[in-house]
């Protein structure tokens, strides 16, 4: 047939030429085959979103009093008390209100874990002016390393958490605001136990947001019996 091909004949012919050229190029050098594999792998990811950031799993919204499994912890947050002075070591400090988030804590790890390990598992949200025990603002709501207390005859700090024991705990922080909202959000993160990519040690890392607990707050004091008694 002479003359220009009809519209229906152009595409198959061009496709075939493209295919032949591609095959020749791939066969020309081993390194081209490598490039082809990489391009094919990238094309295969397109239906799954390609190089776009993977959407974060939506954390479970839970009510206060629910036990959340956020490895290596099982944490049940019940309520929070706040006030200028909460007894024990939480004495009055100028310009700050103490906040204690109360609940129970259990470690599911096989070894005793430092209290600082809890820091990267808990973030406090919706608490204006959130700060550590010394009034230093929290970094993105991250719980300070020295904020773990147990509620025993008096509040005493807990340096580490032994496996297999359930502790009554208070997570201590402060706020530079004069009042605390009726509810605060506490985000809990699960971690994975794996070998460090930098050195030959095992560590809990790869935080993944697991749950958001809504914790009711109440003002405590000015008279108190203990940190967890709320008196008028």
């Amino acid at each position, binding site marked *: 047939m002479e003359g220009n091909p009809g519209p229906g004949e152009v595409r198959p012919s061009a496709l075939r030429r493209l295919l032949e050229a591609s095959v020749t190029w791939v066969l020309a050098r*081993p390194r081209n085959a490598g490039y082809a594999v990489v391009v094919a792998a990238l094309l295969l990811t397109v239906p799954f979103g390609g190089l776009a950031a993977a959407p974060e799993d939506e954390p479970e919204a839970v009510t206060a009093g629910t036990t959340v499994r956020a490895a290596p912890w099982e944490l049940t947050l019940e309520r929070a008390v706040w006030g200028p002075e909460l007894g024990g070591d939480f004495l009055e400090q100028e310009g700050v209100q103490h906040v204690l988030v109360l609940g129970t804590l259990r470690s599911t790890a096989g070894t005793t874990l430092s209290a600082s390990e809890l820091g990267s598992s808990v973030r406090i949200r919706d608490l204006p002016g959130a700060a550590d025990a010394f009034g230093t603002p929290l970094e993105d709501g991250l719980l300070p390393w020295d904020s773990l207390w147990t509620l025993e005859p008096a509040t005493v700090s807990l340096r580490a958490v032994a496996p297999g024991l359930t502790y009554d705990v208070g997570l201590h922080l402060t706020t530079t605001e004069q009042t605390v909202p009726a509810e605060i959000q506490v985000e809990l993160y699960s971690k994975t136990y794996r070998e460090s990519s930098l050195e030959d040690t095992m560590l809990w890392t790869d935080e993944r947001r697991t749950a958001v607990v809504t914790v009711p707050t109440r003002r405590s004091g000015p008279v108190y019996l203990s940190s967890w008694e709320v008196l008028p």
Partner: protein
Amino acid sequence: MSVAAELATRWAGRAGTIAFVLVALALGRVVGDQVPSPIDSYARPHEVVASQGRPVQLRAATITVDGVTVSRSFQTSSSLYESPGIFVLADVTFTPTLEDSALGHVEIVDRQGRSFTVTRTGGNTCPLTAPGLPTRCSVVLELPPDALPGATLRLGTDGTDTAYQDLAVVDLGLDAQDAQLAADAEPLEPREPLLEEGG
């Protein structure tokens, strides 16, 4: 030979070489993973097993576990602690032999392999001590009642990383009955560090 056939032959040869190298690397990795690492064997702590009351000679210290008591609570000069489990107190006599040392590694391991270390301030009263000076002190750890039977105390001088350490391993001699005794026991009182007359 056509150009295409020549290209195919050259490609096949190089692909064969690449495949051989990849298979050799994979095989090497598999074999390497199966062979025990020499580092694991010589970095493993050297355990010196002893019973209570018998001195254990370690590289840098002599350690004696003088006695073990249990309770639900323990008292320091500043705080009273109550455990959701059981506090185990071990009285220790500790004598560095080479250099200034402290009891840097204090651990209880139970039959399930769980590891317990000090959780409370004041849970290790053994201070940094000069060589040749015996010091009497205590360590206090807390564990759940089901960890008591068969639990062993492991003591060393070089901190929490036990690689290359020598450790004194002492059977605590506790059983399920001790959990009952702990419930009614008075608060434990760790002994304040006391230097004994050198011997």
